[in-house]
């Protein structure tokens, strides 16, 4: 099978009905695996990992904080991608997927902020500090709010999809800019990224390493969050497709009646 044929096969799912049928079939898998991963990962992390010598039992927060933080960013990236697809290929499912994902992103950002704030209280002695990473998450939260508010405010679904897509594009550029601006403005307290650093995974002796005892349950939680995100996006996109269809049916009734 050639690459273009494969690509065409992928675009097939842009058909709402096909998408609904497929997602109906795969959804149980995602729901169940995500539940399993999360339950196992969190139980493992919460009950069966030792306390950190420095942070005490608070390390256990990492199993929620890090996956939520990752998903908060990835969700925005996904919205950016689907917005682009909508603008270029005008597949409705794509726009609706972006709309469906935004509230998930909001919740993920909120979890990251909440767990971070709760963690910060014993570690840094304050609920909140204007650290660059924390600050950029707050800004990301604002972008999510504006994005959702714009979707809600516009009547016509296609116009709303177009406008929110452009907002997502322009917003991403400004979010990136803000990230640099904030970095310049204040150097922070927060951990550098170390989970994804090879040294950390191999257990090299860096100060910030996340050692293997913590790493495996954390990985399981991250996988669980990813699967949960996928399940939610599929499910909610289905809901949005139906809502869109209701709107279209009503509009048609209005014209013919």
């Amino acid at each position, binding site marked *: 099978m050639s690459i273009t044929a494969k690509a065409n096969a992928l675009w097939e799912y842009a058909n709402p009905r096909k998408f609904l049928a497929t997602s109906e079939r795969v959804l149980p898998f995602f729901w169940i695996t995500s539940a399993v991963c999360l339950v196992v990962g969190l139980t493992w992390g919460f009950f069966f990992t030792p306390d950190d010598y420095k942070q005490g*039992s*608070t390390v*256990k927060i990492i199993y929620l904080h890090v996956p939520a933080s990752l998903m908060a960013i990835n969700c925005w990236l996904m919205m950016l991608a689907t917005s682009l697809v909508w603008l270029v290929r005008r597949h409705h499912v794509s726009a609706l997927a972006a709309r469906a994902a935004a509230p998930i992103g909001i*919740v993920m950002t909120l*979890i990251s902020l909440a767990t971070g704030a709760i963690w910060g*209280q014993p570690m840094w002695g304050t609920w909140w500090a204007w650290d660059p990473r924390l600050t950029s998450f707050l800004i990301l939260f604002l972008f999510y709010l504006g994005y959702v508010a714009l979707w809600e405010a516009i009547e016509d679904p296609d116009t709303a999809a177009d406008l929110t897509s452009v907002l997502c594009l322009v917003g991403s550029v400004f979010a990136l800019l803000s990230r640099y601006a904030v970095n310049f403005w204040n150097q922070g307290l927060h951990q550098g990224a170390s989970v994804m650093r090879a040294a950390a995974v191999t257990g090299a002796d860096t100060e910030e390493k996340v050692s293997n005892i913590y790493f495996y349950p954390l990985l399981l939680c991250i996988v669980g969050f990813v699967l949960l995100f996928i399940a939610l996006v599929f499910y909610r996109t289905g809901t949005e497709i139906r809502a869109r269809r*209701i709107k279209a049916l009503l509009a048609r009734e209005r014209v013919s009646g």
Partner: protein
Amino acid sequence: MIPDLGKYSDTVLSAYAASILLLVALVVFSILRGRKVRAEMDKLEQRMSRHG
């Protein structure tokens, strides 16, 4: 049953509680809305196919 969390037990427990609450709320609201919208659409499709 709950492991000894030391002096940070409030911190850890509240972090877990808040996160799980948010996650569960997200899932529950998604499913409630999904059910409602699906029922509404089915009703509408039936009505419209009856009236042509």
